[in-house]
């Protein structure tokens, strides 16, 4: 992979969103990935609806949590995603009001990505932002800088938060992943979290996936 990459600089990432008091990180992680895939294949950056997933993905559990793999499947089954403007985020479960005629984005498939961070970086640089899930240890109090908790405290087996890898690089020789979070811009570095790259910190490499847009 190139030594550094940042999809934000290439216009593939929408502004940081806020999931509010709702465990809907899985929906934000997936829409972020689909936004990136659609941009790379179609050349248009659209902000997509998480509320549609909350309301209409019946396999996942809305604010109680969900899985990206199920969400991709729901997007395929429903027939696409509406935009944020057409199906706005409310942060709580509502009756599904998806309108197929308003769907602006479609996916063809979804794939699981390698657990090798080098390969993930290579994939990201070529193919776009990646949906991942991590152990959120310490994130309640994270302000800025590259987070690298001791491994026993941030076990890869206790994954509890889904986010979006949008880039990677090095800061003063410390390798990092640039991670788009969904807790608003008044958290972290303007809504972004920086995590140590190369040691599987907090399980960042365990559950990487992406939608496929043909």
């Amino acid at each position, binding site marked *: 992979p190139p030594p550094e990459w940042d999809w934000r600089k290439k216009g593939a990432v929408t502004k940081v969103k806020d*999931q509010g*008091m*709702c*465990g809907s*990180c*899985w929906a934000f992680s997936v829409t972020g990935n689909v936004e990136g895939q659609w941009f790379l294949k179609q050349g248009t950056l659209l902000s997509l609806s998480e509320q549609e997933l909350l309301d209409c993905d019946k396999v*996942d*559990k809305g604010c*109680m*949590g*969900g*899985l*990206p*793999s*199920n969400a*991709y*499947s729901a997007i395929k089954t429903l027939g696409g995603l509406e935009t944020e403007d057409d199906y706005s985020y409310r942060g709580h479960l509502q009756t599904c009001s998806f309108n197929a005629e308003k769907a602006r984005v479609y996916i063809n*498939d*979804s*794939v*699981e*990505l*390698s657990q090798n961070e080098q*390969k993930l970086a*290579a*994939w990201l640089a*070529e*193919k776009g932002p990646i949906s991942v*899930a991590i152990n*959120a*240890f*310490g994130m*309640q*109090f*994270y*302000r*800025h*800088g*590259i*987070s*690298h*908790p*001791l491994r*026993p*405290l941030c076990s890869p*087996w*206790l*994954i*509890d*938060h*889904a986010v979006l890898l949008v880039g990677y690089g090095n*800061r*003063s020789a*410390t390798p990092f992943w640039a991670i788009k979070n969904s807790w*608003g811009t*008044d*958290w972290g570095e303007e809504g972004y979290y920086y995590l*140590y790259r190369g040691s599987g910190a907090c399980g960042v490499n365990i*559950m990487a996936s*992406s939608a496929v847009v043909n």
Partner: protein
Amino acid sequence: APAPKKPRAAGPQARELASPELLAPARFALEMYNRGRAAGTRAALRAVRGRVRRAGRGSLYSLKATLVEPPCNDPTVCQLPISKKTLLCSFEVLDELGKHMLLRRDCGPVDTKVTDDTNETFSSFLPLLNKDPLPQDFSVKMASIFKEFVTTYNRTYDTKEEARWRMSVFANNMVRAQKIQALDTGTARYGVTKFSDLTEEEFRTIYLNPLLQEEPGRKMRLAKSVSSL
């Protein structure tokens, strides 16, 4: 309460106390533990021991208390066998001029091997940090930081009691953030965030996604790595 032990050498400002001196902070900790519970469902204090560090106008009590939960009286919700549950709790109570604040609360059943969560892990990693004396104006500074937090993040609390409880959660969280900071090997800085007045449990319940580790999800095909495309 068990007989007071001989004071141990634990630094110039820490000393083990006889039980009567621990009663006020222990009762306060118990009151906090039972907060929101109806009469008849509250835990009782069976034994307490601990030590104190004094600094300036404040005293920090580190307590080990045994609590007894009352037997379950509602047959529709009781788990069998119906018995009293004994808990071993660690409390840290700050007392400044007679005003108490609960900084830490870890409880677990006495008969389980692992009694608690990450706070215990921190304690085992950081025995020295726990013995550091508190700054003289600890609670004054904390109140000032909390006030700034409330303004910055537009927090409103329904009652004074709620505000006091949130401040004690906030203070506890600042200690937690400091410990996380000490255990981070990167360049990250931890401290006050918009989530600083939430307990760890509240934060997990509201913002995190336990399904990610609990459910296998739909199987997806493995992507080809870019080098082999």
